[in-house]
């Protein structure tokens, strides 16, 4: 029982990060029908910004409760700007071309960012540890049954899950209750009609990228604290979050959250319960789960079934 509960905590903590990244995929897809493959690298840039800020702040000896908000906000602003720039320079000029063109551009942007940050003058290929601003330590330990070790929840687990839920709620409020959110829903419904209704579609699309990138930045900061920072760190989480978005139903915000948590849980539980020699198949197994779910529900768990007009 201890094992199972601890694996749940481990899985949810990882899943929260997938969910945060998946939100960005899903929002952009909802509005532009574009799979933004550069999104995983925006997450990486968030981690890099966190690293640079943390080094500066550690030099100034600032306390955690000052440093953490600065790092999170700094990374969100930086990545928001990056997301805006990517959309403005790379996707906007191609918006009226076939969708495949944007998709390939997205892959190009992804490669560009990865290789740019591998340059020694910018960041370099060597992983770096964040200076220890936040000491990761257990905040909750719950004794379970006769097990010799309690179930442990660390402060970072709480931060990642808490931020993920808070961001999701904030985003839902924004989309459902604000005027800008209404415009966003209108654009995702039909771009040209929305523009006929007097909605500035360019602004809405830019904002989608800014929001999605800021969420990826939050995920990047969490993982920078939890793991290390390196220029290729966005590859695997990017793919997994994309899968999470598809799993939950791409275009659906609660779906992204559900998909992200599911991905994290499935992956961790498989690692925790498959025989040890199959540990390395847990990644593959997560994708098998995706295929199975899509066979039964092609539009994802919370996705709407749409009829493609011919």
């Amino acid at each position: 029982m201890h094992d199972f509960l601890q694996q749940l905590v481990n899985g949810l903590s990882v899943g929260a990060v997938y969910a945060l990244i998946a939100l960005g995929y899903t929002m952009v897809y909802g509005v532009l029908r574009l799979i933004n493959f550069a999104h995983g690298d925006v997450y990486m840039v968030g981690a890099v910004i966190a690293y640079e800020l943390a080094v500066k702040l550690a030099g100034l000896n600032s306390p955690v409760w000052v440093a953490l908000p600065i790092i999170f906000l700094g990374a969100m602003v930086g990545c928001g700007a990056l997301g805006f720039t990517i959309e403005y320079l790379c996707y906007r000029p191609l918006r009226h071309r076939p969708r495949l063109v944007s998709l390939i551009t997205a892959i190009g942007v992804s490669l560009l960012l990865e290789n740019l940050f591998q340059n020694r003058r910018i960041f370099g290929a060597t992983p770096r540890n964040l200076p220890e601003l936040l000491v990761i330590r257990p905040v909750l330990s719950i004794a379970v049954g006769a097990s010799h070790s309690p179930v442990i929840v660390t402060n970072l687990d709480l931060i990642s899950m808490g931020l993920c839920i808070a961001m999701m709620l904030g985003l839902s409020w924004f989309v459902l209750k604000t005027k800008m959110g209404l415009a966003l829903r209108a654009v995702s419904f039909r771009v040209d009609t929305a523009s006929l209704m007097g909605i500035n579609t360019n602004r809405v699309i830019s904002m989608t990228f800014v929001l999605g990138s800021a969420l990826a930045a939050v995920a990047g900061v969490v993982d920078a604290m939890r793991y290390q920072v390196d220029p290729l760190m966005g590859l695997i989480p990017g793919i997994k979050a994309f899968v999470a978005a598809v799993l939950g139903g791409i275009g659906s915000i609660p779906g992204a959250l559900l998909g992200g948590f599911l991905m994290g849980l499935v992956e961790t539980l498989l690692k925790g319960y498959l025989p040890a020699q199959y540990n390395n198949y847990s990644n593959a197994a997560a994708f098998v789960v995706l295929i199975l779910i899509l066979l039964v529900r092609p539009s994802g768990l919370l996705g709407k079934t749409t009829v493609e007009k011919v």
Partner: protein
Amino acid sequence: MRWMAFWTTVVLLCLSGCKKQQGESSDIVIGEYGSLSGTTAVFGQGTHNGIQLAVDEINAAGGLLGKPVRLVTEDDEGNQDEAVSVVKKLIDRDNVVGVLGEVASTRSLAGGSVCEQEGVPMISPSSTNPDVTKDRKYVFRVCFTDDFQGSVGAQFAIKKNWKRVAVFSSSNSDYSKKLSMFFKQTFTAAGGQIVSEETYSDGDKEFKAQLTRMQSKNPDAVYLPGYYTEIDLILRQARSLGFTVPFFGGDGWDGATLDSISEGCCFTNHYSPEDPRPSVQQFIATYKAKYGAVPDAFGITGYDAARVMFDAIKRAGSTDRNAVRDAIAQTKDFPGAGGSITIDENHNAKKPIVILEIRDGKTHLADTIQPN
């Protein structure tokens, strides 16, 4: 068509020009490949510093065979495929006499197969997997092998009275796989019990699932033969789960952030800065004077590998690759900084192992084991 013929001629002319230049080269070119960047950058950088020190020394002393030594260094970024292509580059482009490298066994195996094909002598400073030199005519090493390292680790665990040990190894590292195998052999033969075996992949970042599983088996200690980047993450995640038993491993630990989090942990290595032998202390002093830091194990093995290569070229009296190969194979009682080096029939050196223990946030020499 005519243009193509023209350009082909131009290219061929250029190429033959280059070749000629190399034939009459006025220096002795030695190639080095290593992970100067990437997840094992500490390995490559330490080795490079050691090799560069040896090159500077020999050039200050008048060079080899009356010619200066020129070192060409290639970064393989810690990538196996990249290792193959940079070794090819060193051989084809720079026409090197010999190759020095790698630290990680997987990459030494990859680069070694190129050297073997091309007939270029290669010395690995610190790859410990026995397969690196096995059945190879041109590949040598100046360090101990994992059968010795694994058994020393197991004997140390027995001595520490760790009876129930969990093994956590990387399934895509030739080093980790072999080292854990040798550890298990000796450990179980000596009456120890392996209570849990888990695997990860190099490049993984999340290990809590496996750690939780090991923790529930309640081992006395965890044997972790891996590389420092993963070890850093594994230790941090284990401690955050309240999994506080000692972890121990091999020379891949060198480079890890060893502080309060790794208190009580230990690992087997090539060298300790606390080693009182004059050759070691003298090396440390020279290294410090040049780089301003205490060398790691890769510094000293890199230094020794380069010097064995130079010694062989000197004894061969030429830069003919086969003559150099034969001279390396005949190396006997060479006074290396890390101890005397004799290359045996399997192309390995027999060297003592040191056991390092982290106490009070610092690495201390716990024991030195001589080879039998």
